[in-house]
């Protein structure tokens, strides 16, 4: 019993590996004397406010949508889920830019229809955009928790005279708190590390300060500031780890059967979200496409994107498995797991530069696809770790015992029982990594092979140059291919889940 869990050595190795870029940041930052500038206090306030509002917003949108997609009997349930998760595929700066361009006096909407609309800027605008592009994290993690709940508590509350809404609020939500927290964590880290959105929305945040330093060639100062940002990241990680998971026996899941008009009303209420986050950017780009015409796009970019992201997803999941299992087996393992989250909270360009230093230590990898994939893995490992961990947590321990008693060694029991049974979480994790890698930019620019163009780099290129019409096709492709990734994730989910329809065949 005192033996260390078998996953610890590997997990420790991976955690150390995940810390390498942070180590590089430390050595880069060691050049600077300036520790903290009181100027930055206001910026810190803005950063925290943006993070807080974004987390709040992504919970406000993500949780109801999770309830909708998990519990409500909808026509084309899976399609709706894909639609609601799709914003994960869109780079948030694109969303911020198109929202800015569409709304406000003189914006495209005003221009086309003559209707004046309020503009988006500042803290509210940035928080809205960040919310629109991070709520799917909350949606997906919360939905996974919801699916594991037994329906009877809600039914009990309702028969005790509590309305449905109150029952969901008081009986369901407290039990999926950890699922919500897991998603909120990802949303918070994404917000901390994003640069484009607050910049476009004219909000001064930590990342902007870091960027100014970086662009003024103050790399060491930028690294120092990034380390300071990591303190916030660490705090967020700590807070999230305080959320206690309640363990429950899974049971038959709740199904709500609203009438047709109620379904329509629910979908109508939910529709603004995908309209704003997906349809609007594509429409605006489409409009500019008609105005300006297109050119220069090659379909090989899409292939490059998909290929690199796919490799990253696979590798990330492979590495996530030992980390997730270590996290389930003990306190030390949990710490190793937390460590892997750091990469997700550092601004991409700083992280990318740190990885250039790492890459230069491995000349045979430098500027190869291999290093790019490694970079994606380092940045997005937490996405995979989280999903794999939650599926490992719900694994029935007697299955492994049964395998052992049938003569399987611990290793064999792991590969033949534990692994296939956590497949669902692995596929979900792979899908998340895939989506994030598809929209990743700074590491792709810095670390990919020379001449390696992806949808995201092409989008950036034309966006930077102001040829927005050319963003329409890659934008659409990004959404479509990510939809495919999500569909794949849902198939994996179906393999691990036993529907009532399957149940009734007995």
């Amino acid at each position, binding site marked *: 019993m005192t033996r260390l869990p078998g996953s610890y050595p590997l997990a420790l190795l991976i955690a150390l590996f995940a810390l390498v870029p942070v180590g590089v940041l430390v050595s880069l930052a060691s050049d600077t004397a300036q520790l903290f*500038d009181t*100027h930055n206090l206001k910026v810190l306030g803005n950063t925290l406010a943006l993070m807080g509002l974004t987390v709040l917003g992504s919970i406000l949108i993500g949780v109801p949508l999770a309830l909708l997609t998990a519990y409500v009997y909808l026509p084309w349930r899976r399609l709706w889920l894909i639609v609601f998760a799709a914003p994960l595929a869109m780079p948030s700066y694109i969303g911020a830019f198109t929202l*800015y*361009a569409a709304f*406000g*006096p*003189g*914006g495209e909407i005003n221009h086309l229809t003559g209707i004046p609309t309020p*503009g988006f800027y500042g803290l509210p605008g940035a928080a809205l955009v960040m919310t629109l592009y991070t709520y799917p994290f909350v949606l997906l993690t919360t939905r996974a928790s919801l699916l594991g709940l037994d329906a009877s508590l809600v039914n009990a509350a309702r028969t005790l005279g509590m309305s449905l809404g109150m029952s969901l609020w008081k009986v369901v939500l407290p039990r999926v708190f950890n699922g919500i927290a897991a998603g909120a964590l990802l949303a918070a880290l994404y917000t901390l590390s994003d640069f*484009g959105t607050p*910049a*476009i929305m*004219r909000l*001064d945040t930590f990342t*902007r*300060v870091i*960027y*100014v*330093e*970086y*662009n*003024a*060639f*103050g*790399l060491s100062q930028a690294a120092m500031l990034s380390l300071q940002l990591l303190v916030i990241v660490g705090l967020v990680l700590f807070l999230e780890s305080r959320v206690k998971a309640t363990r429950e026996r899974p049971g038959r899941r709740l199904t709500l059967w609203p009438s047709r008009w109620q379904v329509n009303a629910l979908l109508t209420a939910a529709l603004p979200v995908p309209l704003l986050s997906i349809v609007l950017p594509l429409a605006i780009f489409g409009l*500019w496409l008609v*105005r*300006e015409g297109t*050119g*220069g796009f090659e379909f090989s970019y899409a292939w490059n994107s998909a290929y690199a992201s796919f490799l990253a997803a696979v590798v990330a999941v492979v590495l996530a498995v030992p980390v997730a299992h270590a996290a389930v087996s003990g306190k030390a393992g949990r710490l190793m797991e937390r460590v892997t989250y750091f990469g997700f909270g550092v601004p991409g*360009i700083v992280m*990318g*530069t740190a990885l*250039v*230093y790492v890459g*230069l*230590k491995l*000349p045979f990898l*430098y*500027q190869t696809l291999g290093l790019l994939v490694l970079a994606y893995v380092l940045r997005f490992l937490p996405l995979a770790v989280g999903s794999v961990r939650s599926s490992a947590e719900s694994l029935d321990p007697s299955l492994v015992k049964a395998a052992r008693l049938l003569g399987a060694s611990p290793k064999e029991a792991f590969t033949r029982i534990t692994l296939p049974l956590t497949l669902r979480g692995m596929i979900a994790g792979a899908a998340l990594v895939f989506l994030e890698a598809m929209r990743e930019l*700074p590491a792709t*620019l*810095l670390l990919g092979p*020379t*001449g390696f*163009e992806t949808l995201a*780099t092409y989008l*950036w*290129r*034309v*966006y*930077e*140059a*102001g*040829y927005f*019409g*050319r963003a329409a096709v890659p934008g659409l492709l990004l959404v479509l291919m990510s939809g495919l990734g999500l569909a794949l994730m849902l198939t994996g989910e179906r393999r691990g889940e036993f529907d009532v329809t399957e149940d009734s065949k007995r």
Partner: protein
Amino acid sequence: ARALAQTPGALSVDDLPALVGELTLYLGRGEGGLYENVLEAIQKRNPDFKLNIRRGVTAALANTIVAEAQAGVRRADVFWAVDSGAIGLVDEAGLARKLPADLTGQLKEGFRYDNWSPVTGRIRTLPYNTDKLTADKIPASVMALPDSGLSIGWAPAYASFQSFITAMRLLEGEKATGEWLKAMNKRGKNYAGELGVVMAVERGEVDVGFANHYYTLRLKAGKPDARVGLAFTQNDAGCLVNASGILALSEGDLPVNFIRYLLTREVQSYLASEAYEIPLVDGVVPPQGLPALDTISPPKMDLTQLADLRPTLDLMRRVGVL
């Protein structure tokens, strides 16, 4: 452009030796397909020439080049940056090779440097909303702008803007620049980039803004009825001509000859007409929509000096602009 009589300085591609071999170009900021077209055309002309392009954020590429050099690795043969500050960083690190005098000699006066070559210029302008203003309402001196009563859009975090402040600092002195920034800060509205500034001007969010000239020209190209015009100040940092630049990192003729291609009449006029950049060799017409360069009176400035960003940032921070 083709109709133009041949003038000294501007060579034609036909006069250049064929390029043979392989080059890796680090290209700071992509300019969406236009630089691409130029580079593609060069490759098409030279079937034995292979160009590998790595695009990226200018500063990130400069940092990468420095990091590579520290690690004893060299992947880039040529570095083309939109911003002379990045050129300065790499040059200061001692990584830039000296360019032959006959190459730098092709450039207009004031744009000739030993270790790097400007490719095209961009001029600081004051885009203004044509519904609200006319050009004559805009002061001729940038220093007078705070007192003009106009609302102003700017992008202090943007590299070009910081170069402009550096120029002002060198021309007007630290103190005056600081006061100017302080005064401006009361009327300035922050934007992420200068494209955003131009769009804001066009929408009437602000009366006038600070931006490189080509953003306005490109916006008007896509939207001919755009309500935005261009104004220029006189003989101060407000109408500074800055340049994108290129430098060679590896020895040999090939990088140098490649740079020569970028200075040809064909390339320069293409960049002028399509990307609205200002040609820096003689005999090529400037982009449409821009007054002739000699009607504008930009300040005299050693662009390499603009790489000295640190004091500028400190100043901007001190007055609370950054």
